[in-house]
């Protein structure tokens, strides 16, 4: 065997700025890639927007000011769940099937960059939904909102997407490929209904009213109501519940992702 002289520097450590760069590049790529894919993103953002337009505005065109705010907050939560559950869950399920995730796991992608990228994407999509709803509510339903209220509503939506990202992620690790949208719909619509987003909670049977606090969407609804000035209870217990849900789903999903891939 011929001997090859190798002028090789010892393995370079990853400089922290390059590591940060890797996270940013991953998030940027994930966003660019989905925003160039209207077939994926339009349904995810327009479906809840259309629901709000039809059921929140057209069907309630005589609503008083407080009802209109209530509807905005409820459909806002409904709208935020969609990019979280679908954007995260379906894309993860697809990428587990088509081999992209395998390739990324083999490559030295920093831990979590992939998930963080999807999270940023879901937050931006949630922001788009919230802006669309705000525009519709102010323009068509004549909801009166201060600038700060509108900003708080937007922020509630963009952060409120996170527990649903974690939930979508868990589904994405359990179901592969084409099965995911169906499973997510089975979670999305009933959970929205049961937590009083589509029909006020007071109109539901009392048993359903009592179990409503187990749904994360019910807690986010309280926060959204608070954002538009209809808050009845302090925000922090709801924030804590949502944090716990996010952490719980995320840990379960991350564990499964690491073990099964």
């Amino acid at each position, binding site marked *: *065997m011929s*001997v*090859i*002289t*190798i002028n*090789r520097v010892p*393995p*370079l*450590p*990853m*400089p922290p700025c*390059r590591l940060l*760069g*890797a996270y940013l*590049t*991953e998030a940027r*790529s994930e966003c*660019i*890639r*989905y925003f*160039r*894919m209207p077939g994926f993103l339009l349904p995810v953002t327009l479906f809840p927007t259309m629901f709000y337009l039809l059921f929140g505005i057209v069907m309630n065109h005589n609503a008083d000011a407080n009802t209109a705010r209530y509807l905005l907050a409820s459909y806002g939560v409904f709208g935020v769940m969609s990019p979280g559950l679908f954007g995260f869950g379906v894309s993860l399920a697809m*990428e587990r099937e*088509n*081999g*992209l995730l*395998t*390739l990324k*796991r*083999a*490559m*030295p*992608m*920093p*831990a979590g960059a992939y998930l963080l990228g999807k999270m940023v994407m879901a937050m931006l999509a949630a922001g788009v939904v919230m802006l669309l709803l705000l525009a519709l509510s102010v323009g068509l339903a004549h909801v009166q909102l201060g600038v700060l209220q509108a900003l708080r509503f937007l922020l509630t939506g963009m952060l409120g997407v996170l527990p649903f990202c974690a939930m979508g992620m868990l589904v994405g690790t359990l179901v592969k490929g084409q099965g995911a949208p169906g499973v997510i719909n089975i979670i999305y619509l009933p959970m929205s209904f049961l937590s009083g987003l589509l029909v006020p909670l007071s109109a539901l049977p009392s048993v359903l009213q009592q179990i409503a606090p187990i749904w994360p969407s019910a807690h986010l609804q309280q926060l959204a109501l608070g954002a538009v000035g209809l808050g009845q209870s302090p925000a922090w217990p709801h924030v804590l519940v949502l944090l716990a849900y996010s952490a719980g789903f995320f840990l379960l999903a991350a564990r499964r992702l690491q073990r099964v*891939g």
Partner: protein
Amino acid sequence: MTQSVAVVASLSGAVKRYGALTALDGLDLMLHRGELLALLGPNGAGKSTAISLLLGLTRADAGKVELFGRDPQDIEARRRIGVMLQSSFLPPTLTVAELLRLTSSYYPAPRTIDESAGMAGIADLLSRRYAALSGGQQRRVQFALALCGRPELLFLDEPTVGMDIDARQKLWAAIRRLTAEGCAVVLTTHYLEEAEALAHRVVVLGKGRVLSEGSVDALRSHVAVTRIRCISELDVNALAQWPDISLAERDGTHIHLHSDAPEKVLRRLLDADPALSELEVRRAGLAEAFTELTRESEIEKEAA
């Protein structure tokens, strides 16, 4: 000048089971710096499983797996490798330059985008979206992603599937350049001529174990058969009785002979038929050796 050949990755006694199926049955494998190792074997021999272990995608049930002396799941170890998998899906809406920039960002000291693109022959495709490329072009992009991080060890799983001859030759040249720079390469391929053209060492797997290991020549000599083909009127049944002829067949005007002592057979053959024409003598290629080896293991298996 002596230099100890550095081991960059190794499997020792690696066992991996999927339910009742034993994919790897105590596999030992070492990869050395600057060496191109071709991993061959029929489907289900354990090639993909071996690669998955080395990449840290799955864990061995028993045995030891090391990548640069570390656990392959350690990102520090994987920062020194490049990967091109067999069934690679990449985001279709990203451009080639964006894909290269993203993959380069994972490494501490990557090549420039232009350098990677140049080496893989995709400099003219940088602004194109991945989905708009042909299968062969996509393969070259995946190759560029594999080499962009200046890896010391490159995993190439069926790299030239879907490529035309010209593209394949260019990829081979690029692989040779990388190994000359000291990069180790693990190549799995179904094209035996690819292994023949590139490999320093060939490992043939079967049933999760190493069946044979050595240079292409050593492997080829495992099958001592030479093929002789010519136009002749001689009776193949009579030829089959000659010493040193293991097989004699007629195919129209041609006859085919297999022999392990071709010099003797040829001398006698030319004497026996002065009108003999279009003589071809060919040593067994890697393909024959490979078929022979895997068939032997099949027979052993049945006998056991």
